[in-house]
């Protein structure tokens, strides 16, 4: 016999819990890294200790601000542009399959051409400024959004489009009332992937032709064989990426209020 006397039960503060566990995991990882370097006696040239990296970061702090600002700007702009593009294309191609069949090879190409090849052409076309970098980030970002949103639209129950069509709704109505909202969770999943890549893509684009940015900082550090500075750069990438992802997760709560089962990840 399963028995229970209830007094108002509530969901536990799972968001706080998640943050705590996440922080603890990072702390354990960093400690493990420190221990591994000390025990394995690796030369700092191969893998510096986190304590060294922190020391370097503190020392270099005044330098880092502008670099971080540049990269963050590129990443955010690229993410916004790429998301719009990917989502619109997803909705468009789901409504007009032929447009999908036409754009498909172009999209695939845009994802398979290595950046090193694309970059010179991009510079030819857009110069050295922010544009080519934002474009490269957008190019990285739009694809996961496109694919995940397309899948979400496709997987939406035919019941819903039928309902709208059965009330006299045309293609545009089905798009606006069913496809677009149905694509939101998928687009957000794509965006979650894209947000993780955005900062990295911005950094790579800075390798190609940058004067400022975390990518430039890392590249200079590499040329100067300053391995600890490279790791400062990596830590910055990780932190920026984590912030982007956190923003997307928060966005999901706002953008899909009908979903109550919003647990973790």
């Amino acid at each position, binding site marked *: 016999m399963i028995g229970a006397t209830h007094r108002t039960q509530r969901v536990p503060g799972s968001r706080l819990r998640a943050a705590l566990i996440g922080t603890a995991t990072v702390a354990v990882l960093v400690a493990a890294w420190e221990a591994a370097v000390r025990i394995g006696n690796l030369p700092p040239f191969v893998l510096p200790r986190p304590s060294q990296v922190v020391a370097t970061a503190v020392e270099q702090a005044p330098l880092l601000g502008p670099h971080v600002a540049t990269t963050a700007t590129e990443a955010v702009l690229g993410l916004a542009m790429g998301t719009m593009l990917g989502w619109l294309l997803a909705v468009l191609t789901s409504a007009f399959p032929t447009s999908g069949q036409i754009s498909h090879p172009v999209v695939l190409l845009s994802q398979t051409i290595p950046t090193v090849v694309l970059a010179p052409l991009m510079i030819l076309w857009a110069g050295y400024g922010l544009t080519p970098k934002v474009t490269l980030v957008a190019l990285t970002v739009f694809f996961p959004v496109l694919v995940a949103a397309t899948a979400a639209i496709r997987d939406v129950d035919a019941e819903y489009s039928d*309902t709208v069509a*059965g009330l*006299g*709704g*045309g293609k545009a109505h089905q798009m606006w*009332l069913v496809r677009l909202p149905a694509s939101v969770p998928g687009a957000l999943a794509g965006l979650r992937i894209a947000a993780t890549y955005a900062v990295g893509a911005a950094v790579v684009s800075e390798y190609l032709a940058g004067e400022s940015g975390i990518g430039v900082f890392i590249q200079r550090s590499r040329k100067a064989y300053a391995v600890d500075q490279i790791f400062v750069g990596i830590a910055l990438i990780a932190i920026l990426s984590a912030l982007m992802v956190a923003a997307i997760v928060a966005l999901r709560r706002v953008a899909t209020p*009908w979903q109550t089962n919003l647990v973790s990840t």
Partner: protein
Amino acid sequence: MTTTANSTGRAPEAGRSEPVLSVGDLTITFPASRGGRGGSQDGGLNVLDALSLDVHDGEFVAVLGPSGCGKSTLLRALGGLLDPRAQVEGTIAVPSDASGRRATAWMPQRDGLLPWRRAMANAMVGAIAAGVPRDRAYPRAQQLFEEFGLAGFERAWPHELSGGMRQRLALLRTCLAERPVLLLDEPFGGLDPVTRRRMNAWLATVHLTEQAAAADAVARDASTTGSGVVLVTHDIDEAMTLADRIVVLSDRPGRLLYEARARQGGEERYDRGSLLSALDC
């Protein structure tokens, strides 16, 4: 065996005028499902068999028949919503409005509420899809929420509504489309007897008047015909109370088994006995 009884005042005699909606010798077959349906259904499932049915201006037709005989399939065919893999033979003619769209509003058996819209927003889907201006539809929706016992739930998500509330909301949505022809698939299935009779009465009186007006409005634009309702139900009393004509389909593949018109005037609109015996076949 096709029985024809007298018609009510509103519904014209069969054949007297052009039907609003007409189905001729309709046969629908679903192909074997991917990977095979298995058993006797392999090689396709014949659902409707040479079904003919006319709905005349202002007529309210109730369709009865055993579960799985093809009632929902018929309604989907009328609404233009058939699975594209279905093989269709015969003719279907439905009225269209000025812009060339079907003049029908379909209510699915499983409410079809959109999970991402709150109750009121779901209701407005009917108006939006059918192009009814918001400033006419919204006040009407508010009033219907009241009448349908949904007041206070305007901002609830569909999953926060009970089964019967969902169904009432789906009917509300369908009515907001203001289409001349209604295709209703068991709209009152999940309701308790009291609510059901209340909704029945509402549909019979208030709505049919408005719907005829909608048909007139449409007719003024285009040169199309009038209004009509096709109601699928399992409730014999409901059918007898509401319908000008009752059609009973046979077991799958659905054929026309019985057809009766409501008697004008008299107490008993239909001969309950023959109807029941048709259903028991």
